[in-house]
């Protein structure tokens, strides 16, 4: 019984860990730039594919398989720099346009990135083979849990704490918060918003690409993999509150664990349960659990 409970919880928390990274990327971009980035799921897919390539290159060149997580994370982070290109090359032209244009542009990005992925990696699913099993299994209260899953959960938690520290303790964090609260005032005080936007968007992209890279050893990369996650990320955002990092954290946990419990107890309810929570939150707290009026 305890083992089953642990299995269900660990399944949910693992899912939540990945979901958090994508949702956090979505949140940071919305919080500061007020852009609802539909392409964050595509960045996740891009990170996954890059992760596979980085690990493949590493092992093909004699890298010890036990250290595969290093090229994996570096590959995921490096491809996050595509955020600079997207922000400078595309997004900056629509900041002053109607929100519809921003949505259209980020949706166009979804389609473009999907084609780009197919052109680069082909149509067949790609994976890192059996490296996932390299770190073995841990026994937790009678349940068998892949150690890699624990590493991902720990990494996601560390990133959450890191973002918390960045936002609350650093100069950059103060600027971000100021820009999120009142862009005009921040600009009047001499903050170069171009500088802020390019960094914020790249940070958001990197969170997504790193999420994709970290998940990939446990799964296989498919060009449409982002679509699956983006729908859940939206649920996270609504539950947690638009623009709130704490909301992304709690929302991801709620969605991940509820999904896992639903699959074990009454599988037909998997998505329905999540949306019931979304509806309940919308009725009870329209701004989400941690949303603010400004966001």
């Amino acid at each position, binding site marked *: 019984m305890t083992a089953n409970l642990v299995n269900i919880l660990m399944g949910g928390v693992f899912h939540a860990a990945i979901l958090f990274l994508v949702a956090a990327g979505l949140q940071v971009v919305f919080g500061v730039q007020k852009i609802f980035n539909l392409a964050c799921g595509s960045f996740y897919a891009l990170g996954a594919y890059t992760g596979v390539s980085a690990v493949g290159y590493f092992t093909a060149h004699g890298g010890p398989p036990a250290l595969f997580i290093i090229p994996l994370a570096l590959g995921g982070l490096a491809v996050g720099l595509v955020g600079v290109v997207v922000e400078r090359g595309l997004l900056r032209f629509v900041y002053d346009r109607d929100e519809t244009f921003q949505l259209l542009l980020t949706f166009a990005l979804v389609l473009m990135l999907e084609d780009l992925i197919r052109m680069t990696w082909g149509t067949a699913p790609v994976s890192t083979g*059996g490296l996932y099993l390299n770190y073995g299994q841990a026994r937790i209260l009678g349940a068998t849990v*892949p150690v890699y899953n624990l590493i991902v959960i720990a990494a996601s938690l560390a990133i959450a704490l890191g973002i918390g520290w960045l936002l609350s303790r650093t100069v950059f964090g103060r600027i971000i918060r100021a820009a999120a609260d009142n862009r005009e005032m921040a600009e009047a005080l001499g903050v170069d918003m171009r500088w802020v936007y390019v960094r914020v968007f790249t940070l958001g992209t990197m969170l997504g690409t790193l999420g994709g890279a970290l998940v990939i050893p446990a*799964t296989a*990369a498919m060009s449409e993999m982002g679509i699956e996650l983006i729908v859940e990320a939206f649920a996270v955002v609504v539950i947690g509150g638009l623009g709130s990092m704490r909301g992304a954290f709690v929302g991801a946990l709620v969605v991940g664990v509820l999904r896992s419990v639903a699959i074990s107890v009454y599988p037909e309810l998997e998505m329905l349960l999540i949306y019931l929570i979304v509806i309940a939150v919308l009725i009870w707290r329209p701004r989400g659990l941690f949303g603010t009026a400004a966001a």
Partner: protein
Amino acid sequence: MATTRREFLKVAGGAAAAGAVGFPAVARGQARPGVPSDPVKIGIIAIRAGIAAPVGTAGLRGTEWWAERVNKSGGILGRQVQLIVEEESNPKDTVERYRKLILQDKVEVVIGGISTGVTLALGPVAEEMDTPWLSWDGTTQKGVEETMPNPKWAFKSVDNEVEAIVAGTLTPKYFKGVQTIAGINNDYSYGHDCWETYQAVLKKMGMNVKPVLELFPKLGVTDFTSHIAAIQQAKPDLLMTSFWSGDATILMKQAAAVGLFKNMKGVFTTAGGVHDSLKKEFTPEGLLLGYNTMYFDDPKGSPLLKQFVREYKAKYNEYPAYESDHAYFNIESYKVAVEKAYAQTKQWPTKAQVVKALEGVEAESLSGTRSWRPDHIQMCNFYQGLTTHKNNYDFVTINPIEVVSTKTAMKPAGSKLLDWINGWKV
């Protein structure tokens, strides 16, 4: 974006035709009397995006391989072959492209279609357009029974549920003591039908099994950790799945990470789309695995199959999926039918004459001879067996290879699937 892709394909098709003109005269063959000299246009509907992209691509590559060989050896009755490829996407758009192939490109036949939703939409259109259509795949029973009962122009793939039927008949042989089963199948008609059929066959085979869990994740899910936790909780003796794309690999990998198959039998009815991604590291021995139609490592495989696999691997650095085989047979059977009709009339046959010639025709596929049943259903062999690590690859193969013909594993024309199974005398 779709338009751009179509435009690109148009140019690519034109380039291919121009290339064909450049073939040495000896290789191009001489057109027979009564046969036009211009290339014969063949429309191809291929899915290259989304979850079915790997099999769609495999089907297209099998077709292109065929076209290259046929053109080098003189074409069909001396006519060079020109493929005009259109994208398979949603039913509405695909139907439009299908009409365009016939009305604008003036193709003589349309071949392809994988997704059940798309092929069900194409069926009635094929009947309207008076042009033969040979489907690669996408023919789950319920849909076919409802929308294409007596096709005149449409030629349909083998019943998809055959894989589950074959697995059901082999389960008592390999996994005798099983008492409880669980199923994880995709949440669409194929997944539901396979699970239902598999259980019906087990019952008919005298296995008194109790289903303890059924999961139907959406297509495209990449994290089955929670599903596996649910399976662990249900503790079935056997897990059955009809996953056939990347999800089969993911399930196998995530199951291995928690040692799911240490105390559980496994039945994977079809791995034909991703067989080479089922690495030994995470795919245990002793699972019942289906290869759908073509088994590339079959020591008894034909020289044609061996050549195809060799050249495919060399060109694309991967192994072909089962859809190459369906696609190869479809287009080869068209050639055979045209030649058969010509032998009678000494004229390039009309579309209606081709359809008549296709009925009951036999032609070579990559995995041996196949045929079209008079009711326009493809007849072929299925390959299933227990996974083994004893081979030269880094992925599992099956041994022994059980070869089951659709002549025995597919319901006869006109009957209902479950009625037919329930009527078996075992």
